[in-house]
């Protein structure tokens, strides 16, 4: 046995324990800089009623030079997409996962840019998916990063983190990545011992200044904030929405706090919720950002939002475009939000997201960005 132990140790010393080599990657992809080149959407026929209207609007508004990878459970799913959404100008190519999945592409991975020009984009996936032990579709979601890398081996590599997170928990521009408080809650004393340890890991992986929000609405970052470039942050403001829906409801002689747009429990204009949105604005200002407020309408369930920051931004030379959610029945809110984006110099391309907001997500949640120029 002693000989065996010595022999084994000798083998290890000579060959070196094969550390799991970590392929280099660049910083996290910015949300607001660069031209959209490759996107990833999911299509699950069971969620057709939610996503099809949005995809129809969005894909028809995209430029022709954008490539869209559509992850589907199987070939029948892709054919159903083609039949349902119809012709679109951009290029659509299927990735057949071969397993159940949800429609929410954004949360499955975070794109890390190539370490060197011409290199591969890294899809940084979380350690696991919430609810995966219960829902097969969530268990399937856990595999999406590897599915995409297997389908696009020359340009994409997959890497799984030791941390728990959703892709939507991060909001990045070219300088900073903001992280919602939930990431700390999910990882403290589970995968990391201290807040500082988590920050260190995120800084090392994302290669940007990391700001962990201490206070924020309990939701994905893209539901309440958007970085719009030029060190400017757009932050939702329920009080702006309150004024608008009061006008909206007046002709119907109804109190504005009752049953607007089917929001569960009605709109949430509580001081506590207002404080959370204001706290985000304060933390971004402390980080050196100019703050612009935009109407947002959260519901009492704290999950359902009518939000106008859950967007896709495209930079084309001097032009800046925003694919902006709009909602049927909320025309005054839609118009006010559009005015804010236009005041920031954006060309607005509206996308009807009425079918999605009751499921706690919107356009940005359904679309993940693989590559920008």
């Amino acid at each position, binding site marked *: *046995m*002693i*000989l*065996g*132990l010595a*022999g*084994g*140790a000798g*083998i*290890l010393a000579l060959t070196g*324990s*094969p550390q*799991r080599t*970590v392929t280099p990657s660049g910083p996290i992809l910015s949300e607001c800089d660069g031209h959209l080149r490759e996107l990833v959407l999911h299509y699950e026929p*069971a*969620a057709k009623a*939610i996503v099809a209207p949005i995809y129809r609007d969005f894909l028809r508004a995209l430029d022709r030079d954008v490539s869209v990878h559509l992850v589907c459970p199987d070939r029948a799913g892709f054919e159903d997409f083609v039949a349902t959404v119809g012709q679109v100008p951009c290029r659509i190519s299927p990735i057949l996962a071969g397993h159940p999945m*949800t*429609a*929410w592409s954004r949360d499955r991975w975070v794109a890390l840019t190539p370490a060197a020009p011409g290199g591969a984009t890294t899809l940084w996936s979380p*350690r696991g998916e*919430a*609810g995966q*032990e*219960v*829902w097969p*579709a*969530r268990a399937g979601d856990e595999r999406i990063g*590897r599915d995409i890398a297997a389908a696009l081996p020359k340009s994409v590599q*997959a*890497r*799984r*983190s*030791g*941390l728990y997170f959703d892709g*939507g928990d991060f909001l990045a521009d070219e300088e900073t990545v903001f992280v919602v*408080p939930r990431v*700390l*809650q999910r*990882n*403290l*004393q*589970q*995968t*990391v011992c201290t807040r500082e*340890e*988590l920050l260190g*890991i995120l800084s*090392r*992986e994302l290669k940007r200044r990391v700001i962990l929000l201490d206070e924020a609405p*309990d*939701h*994905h970052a893209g539901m309440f904030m958007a970085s719009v470039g030029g060190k400017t942050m757009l932050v939702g403001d329920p009080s702006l929405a309150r004024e608008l829906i009061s006008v909206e409801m007046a002709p119907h002689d109804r109190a504005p706090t009752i049953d607007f747009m089917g929001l569960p429990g009605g709109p949430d204009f509580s001081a506590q919720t207002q404080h959370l949105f204001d706290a985000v604005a304060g933390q971004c200002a402390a980080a050196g950002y100019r703050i612009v407020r935009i109407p947002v309408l959260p519901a009492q*369930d*704290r*999950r359902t939002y009518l939000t106008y920051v859950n967007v896709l931004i495209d930079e084309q030379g001097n032009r800046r475009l925003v694919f902006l959610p709009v909602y049927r029945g909320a025309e005054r809110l839609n118009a006010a939000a559009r005015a804010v984006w236009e005041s920031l110099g954006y060309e607005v391309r509206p996308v009807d997201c009425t079918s999605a907001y009751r*499921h*706690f*997500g919107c356009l940005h*949640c359904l679309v993940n960005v693989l590559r920008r120029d």
Partner: protein
Amino acid sequence: MKKKDILTIATAALGTATLTVTAFWAGPLDAGHDAEAPAPLAAKTRLVAHGVEIGLAASGGRIFQAGEQPEFELTATNTTNQTANVSVCVTMTASSLADALSRTVRLPAVMWWQEQIVSLGPNETKTLTLATRTNLPAKSVISVSLHDLDQKAPTPLAAIVALSFATTTNGASPFVASAR
């Protein structure tokens, strides 16, 4: 030394060498280093407060179903060589299973909670049984979390989800209560 003895020694040495290499070959997984397929968390999730490790498990390793009133075993281990007192809040919440299409699980509803003070001698371990006397809803994901009451930070930062499982109406496809 006989040839047979040499063969026996060589075989044992080879086997031990193989085991040694195998045991230390795999790189470590920690939160800062990525791996293609990370292993499940090696240890059960425990709340650590004032040198006391606190864990939770289903009483008797039971499988809970809708309509039942679950009981849990709270185990506290004092890892120090001094007496220790901890105040912990145990909270049980329920979320709907029906949100498979939604982006996030709906906010869980608090079904039961209990504050528990545990006093331990040096290196002592105690196990307490907690009876919820609360009927579990059907088709729900049940989570049980631990929170150190002495933490000055807001509750969410100190709460640890120690146990989670799902319920069905008739016992079909029950899920074993698993410590996270």
